[in-house]
């Protein structure tokens, strides 16, 4: 079964007396283990789409199914649980918790879910930090890291709970092209080895070239696959 399924999804933002239609009827299916890029010019609705899939926002009309659950019918508590257990986020501006060090940032979602013993937790955190190559920076704070390093921490944090889907909204936009490419490489490798579904947005052609599937959107509608 598809991990993400969108049917006739419309998202409208009220803007004073006007209504901005960010998405105008999106139909889309993403299978488990896919590595999908959502591409499109600025303002086309990429972030809006990822927010809906990421359960941080709900559609105005249409249905969004994530791991078989209709997000429009879930309570705030249910959505929170879904985000915690099924989803991982990688943000354009990294969004690490400034007062926590690398280890603590990566550990944070595990503490929230509380499913592992302290020993298992530490092992899991260290192995992920090792995967993103930050073993040396274990006790550094975000302010003491470069942009690329911060995004690596964010990737480790997104993957630590072993989510079904990882969402990344322009994860390379704040990085130089070399670093960006290595981040994409890392995500691809994790997609291959862990089987995690990756959905990310970009308007960078160099990044798009890595994708296995590209969904192009324009003005809130799917333009081509």
């Amino acid at each position, binding site marked *: 079964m598809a991990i993400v399924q969108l049917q006739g999804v419309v998202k409208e933002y009220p803007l004073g007396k006007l209504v901005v239609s960010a998405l105008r009827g999106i139909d889309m299916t993403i299978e488990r283990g896919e590595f999908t890029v959502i591409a499109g010019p600025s303002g086309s609705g990429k972030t809006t789409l990822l927010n809906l899939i990421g359960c941080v926002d709900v559609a105005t009309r249409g249905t969004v199914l994530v791991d078989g659950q209709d997000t429009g019918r879930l309570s705030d508590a249910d959505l*929170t649980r879904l985000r915690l257990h099924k989803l991982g986020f990688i943000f354009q501006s990294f969004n690490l*918790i400034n007062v926590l060090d690398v280890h*603590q940032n990566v550990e944070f979602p595990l503490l929230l879910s509380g499913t592992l013993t302290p020993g298992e937790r530490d092992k899991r955190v260290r192995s992920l930090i090792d995967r993103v190559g930050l073993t040396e920076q274990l006790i550094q704070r975000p302010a003491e890291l470069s942009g690329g390093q911060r995004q690596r921490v964010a990737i480790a944090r997104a993957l630590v709970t072993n989510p079904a889907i990882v969402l990344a909204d322009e994860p390379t936009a704040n990085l130089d092209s070399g670093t960006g490419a290595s981040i994409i490489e890392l995500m691809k490798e994790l997609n291959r080895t862990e089987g995690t579904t990756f959905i990310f947005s970009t308007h960078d052609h160099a990044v798009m070239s890595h994708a296995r599937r590209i969904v192009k959107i324009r003005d809130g509608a799917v333009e081509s696959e």
Partner: protein
Amino acid sequence: MRVLVHIALRNLFQARRRTALLGSAIALVSASLILLLSIAHGIEDSLVTSATTLSAGHVNVGGFYKTTATDAAPLITDKAKLRQIVMDNVPGVEGIIERHRGWGKVLSPFGTIQSGLQGVDISTEKRFLERIQLAKESDYVEGGRDEVVGDPSKLAQPRTVMMFAANARKLGVRVGDEVTIQIELLGGATNTLDATLVAVARDVGMLSSFAVLLPTQDVLELYRIRPETTGALWVYLDDIDRAEAVRADLAKVFEAEGYRVMDHVAAPFFFKFDTVMGEDWTGQSIDLTTWEDEVSFLTWVLTAFNAVSWSLVTVLVGIIAVGIMNTLYTSVRERTREIGTMRAIGMTRWQVLGLVLLEAGLLGLGATALGTVAGAAIATGIDLLNLPVPILAVQAILLADTLHLKVVPSNLVAGVVALSTFTALAALWPAWQAASMRPVSAMSHIE
């Protein structure tokens, strides 16, 4: 959850200037609260001490004797029997003393005062002698010696008198001088007696202005009364808190023994003359009071002080509350993206609410603990300094001639608990604002 405590502490540290500012304000209020409470307890302490030294025992067996329906003398007859009844029926009695209750004028060549005249048997007044302090001569005589002169034990001899510094000053007398004591007898005739001033004690507030002490013998002679009568038995207990219970018990005991026992009125004996004179009986009646009843006209001091203190603390706490709300609201606003991120990652609303409350609670706990300890230290310090209170009116209110503060440990704990809980409560609104932030706010790109 440990990580929330960690984040809360780190957030406080991150915003150290803000934390320090708000923390100092909270600490200051805690310290003020403790100081005010210590002063109130100091006054209470002084009140208890001076009341139970100058005006009453813990429980008092007094009463009125009426020869006709329209007169009243503050006397009890057959004091030995009354004393025996008390001894037989009250457990934990530490001691019983007798004080005659008189009222009259004291005259010197330089002045006159009106005062209560207490007949004492100084050999039984160990407690009184332990608690009062003699005044230096310079305290009450212009250009007097800077040393204590006089000896209260000389009250054992007839024709002697002892008083407090304020009265000695008004009369312009020093130890060794003669004064004349003048009283009015039941029919209106006056009687006088000359006595030598043998000791002058340091003032202990209002009550000391109304206490002039004479030997029992002299009072009997002045009032022409028999030796088996006295004014009241002052009963001291091992535990002052039992006073009211013992008073109530004794009322039943004396009734059972066939005495006429007056209805309990929480007032000193000298407020009761009018009532008693208006009543239609003759002979003896017994009036049982506690020390608090006898100084009930003074408790307004404590009530007033507490009222002022609490209004002050309420205002301060109100200001602090606004400060906490405002500061936390700003801090939460500034962290919109971080809070959104935590929500997106999977933190629940309640956890966000808890995080902000925890931050405020920890700040409150730290600051109040610090402030309370500082307040207690300052209060103890001031008390140890024994600062003299130069203004008589203030002395009257404080019931002592030095500033006395008493730190009560349970107040410290209560202060910390109350104020840090309060801090957390003031944080409820900003915490709710934080909890209501939407996870999508994590996506805003503004750094």
